[in-house]
């Protein structure tokens, strides 16, 4: 089966600019997650979708981050405006039962 697809792989932006990341999960996986992994740390959950509904966004900085999963398939995570501390790898994952699959991530550098 195809894995979780993410794009772009790398992105460099200046602070205060906006950026968007895209994720296409494994077909049939109802649950989709966005994680933020800052260098030297473990991934931190930003938002979790069940189909096209948000079930957990408690750690999403909602003043600057937004995410959507229209039609319950692929998802977009947006940051506007970006800050230096947003530099990280953004990982998308999808799951079915206890089978979790992670994408390769998007490495964001904010300068």
């Amino acid at each position, binding site marked *: 089966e195809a894995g979780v697809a993410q794009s772009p792989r790398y992105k460099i932006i200046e602070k205060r600019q906006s950026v968007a990341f895209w994720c296409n999960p494994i077909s049939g996986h109802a*649950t989709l*997650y966005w*994680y933020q992994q800052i260098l*030297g*740390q*473990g*991934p*931190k*959950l930003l938002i*979790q979708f*069940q189909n096209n509904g948000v*079930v*957990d966004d408690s750690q999403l900085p909602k003043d600057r981050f937004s995410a959507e999963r229209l039609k319950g398939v692929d998802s977009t995570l947006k940051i506007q405006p970006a800050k230096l501390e947003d530099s990280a790898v953004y*990982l998308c*994952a999808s*799951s079915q039962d*206890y089978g*979790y699959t*992670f*994408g*390769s*991530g998007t490495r964001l550098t904010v300068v």
Partner: protein
Amino acid sequence: AQSVTQLDSHVSVSEGTPVLLRCNYSSSYSPSLFWYVQHPNKGLQLLLKYTSAATLVKGINGFEAEFKKSETSFHLTKPSAHMSDAAEYFCVVSDPGGGYNKLIFGAGTRLAVHP
């Protein structure tokens, strides 16, 4: 809330010697526990998972982990380290809070393997 604590941020071993990466968990439920590995500039790869079946779980590449409820531990071991094992390892617990499972990661242990 569920959480995991990885007791060592860095572990260094010689090639051919045993590996022990320590993890303690905190859980109000009967937990599901995982170990993931992340090689430099690579994605996360599942090594093994425990979901309330056998307490000794065997994974890929010769790794195994033992679930010990009395000690709230889920340590990862390998009898003989290989140079290719050098990577970051994450202990992970599944949190079913709110009725929807999500993975909670530890801070990670960086494993270095010396010739």
